[in-house]
């Protein structure tokens, strides 16, 4: 399958931050969620993928275009919206639509009108009078109505109230029904990522600490509660990333679950009380604290 984008050995250094050795591929038609705390490198990675920034090392190919040299050709086919992107406050949404429509021949006017109605936006009103949520929706409308093959969204739901967030997520869900469209979106909200993404990447301190299909993530990770005294050497088991003893209880977090693990724990003197799947947020926090691959 052709990749929507592929990056190899990507590095970008700033005075106070460095993105290091990122290898990542998004197959066409897939949705990837990029999770990381503020300053993890999500925005830097997205800027590199749009050609706005040039890497210090490594290669970037987006929709068959090598970046940053072929950024114009790539940007014709992609939609990019970031949290730090603003529209002109003194101008109306109609004015912005007119500008963007003239640049992108694939602009879908009917879809734009549908989104205006769905988002309850006033197209003739100056954007200075819009709320933050309305401005985010306006930006998304300008991205989606150009029918991009690849959608790059940097923190699309940050700062939105619950209603606006639900509307944006529902619209993104609709967009994702189009199997030809690929999406990469970053967020520090793991619930959004869990809801939308086919695959998930964890970025931390400029490094991609984990990347896998969502189902694999959720299948592999388990929280195990045991009774007994934690035997020595448990920290060294490769599938365990977290071992914490509290009284007679031992909490384990497992990153590579295997069905024979309870038996092995019993053999080591622990009685397994319960095994629970882990929510993505817990997986993210555990993986980041472990600092290694999941």
């Amino acid at each position, binding site marked *: 399958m052709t990749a929507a984008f592929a990056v190899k050995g990507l590095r970008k250094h700033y005075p106070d931050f460095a993105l290091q050795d990122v290898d990542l591929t998004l197959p066409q038609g897939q949705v990837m969620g990029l999770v990381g705390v503020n300053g993890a490198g999500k925005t830097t990675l997205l800027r590199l993928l749009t050609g*706005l920034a040039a890497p210090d090392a490594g290669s970037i190919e987006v929709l068959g275009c090598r970046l940053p040299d072929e950024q114009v050709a790539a940007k014709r086919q992609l939609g990019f919206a970031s949290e730090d992107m603003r529209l002109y406050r003194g101008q109306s949404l109609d004015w912005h639509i007119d500008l963007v429509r003239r*640049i992108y021949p694939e602009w879908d006017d009917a879809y734009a009108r549908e989104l205006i109605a769905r988002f309850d936006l006033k197209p003739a009103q100056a954007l200075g009078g819009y709320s933050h949520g309305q401005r985010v929706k306006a930006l998304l409308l300008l991205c989606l109505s150009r029918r991009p093959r690849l959608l790059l969204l940097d923190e699309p739901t940050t700062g939105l109230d619950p209603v606006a967030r639900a509307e944006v997520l529902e619209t993104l869900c609709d967009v994702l029904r189009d199997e030809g469209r690929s999406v990469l979106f970053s967020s520090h909200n793991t619930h959004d990522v869990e809801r939308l993404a086919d695959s998930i990447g964890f970025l931390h301190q400029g490094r991609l600490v984990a990347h896998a299909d969502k189902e694999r993530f959720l299948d592999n990770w388990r929280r195990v509660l045991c009774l007994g005294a934690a035997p020595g050497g448990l920290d060294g088991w490769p599938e365990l990333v977290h071992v914490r003893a509290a009284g007679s209880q031992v909490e384990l977090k497992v990153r590579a679950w295997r069905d024979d693990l309870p038996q092995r724990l019993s053999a080591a003197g622990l009685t397994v009380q319960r095994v629970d799947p882990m929510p993505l947020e817990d997986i993210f926090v555990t993986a980041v604290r472990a600092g290694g691959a999941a």
Partner: protein
Amino acid sequence: MNFGLNVPVIRLLIVKDWQLFQKQLAAYVLAGFAALTLLGLAKPWAFYLGSLALIVVLVAAACFAIATSLLVERKEQTLAFVMSLPVSPLDFTAAKLLGNLLTFGVPFAVLLLGTLVVILTTPLPDGLVILALLLFGHVLLAYSVSLAVAMQVESEGWNTFAMIGSMVLINPFLMAIGQIEAIQGPLRGDAIAWSLPAALILAGQLLVSAAALAGTAWWQGRKAAFY
């Protein structure tokens, strides 16, 4: 380096800047006409007030064009939106330079033309044409240097320094050319008397202005990406 410009999008971005700022720039032109009206009265007090007002309007229009199209866009994060459109850094530079030259150039040209018409059609001495051209030449030079700095430096402090610093130099500049007899002498006469110093100063202003803008375009054109 890719010199293939995306001309249709550059044209749209220039039109965008024109649409964004045309009302304010029209207001500057109207204020300039008011200043020219005072100049045309050809009375000492009116000439003093009119020339002062004209300088203020020119400086304000120059600073407004640069500040709104680059510094405010950077501060309000609308530049990120523009850069996300299918443009290369060279396209963006071309659009910003040409857009600025249009948004400032139109009021500048209208006011220059108006000033020359006022001098030549009122009792004011025609010799003032040389002074007017040198004055407009200085504003053009200060504008070009400030625009070049704004294109290349993100620091608000340095940009403010470049704009205010270059514009306020108009006062010592006028004092300095007042000390050159070959320029000062013919100002009150009815003939437009070009002297070698006046011609050299004007040529220098135009050359440095062009060099500042060309150097900026060349430097920005070398960049592969925006960040």
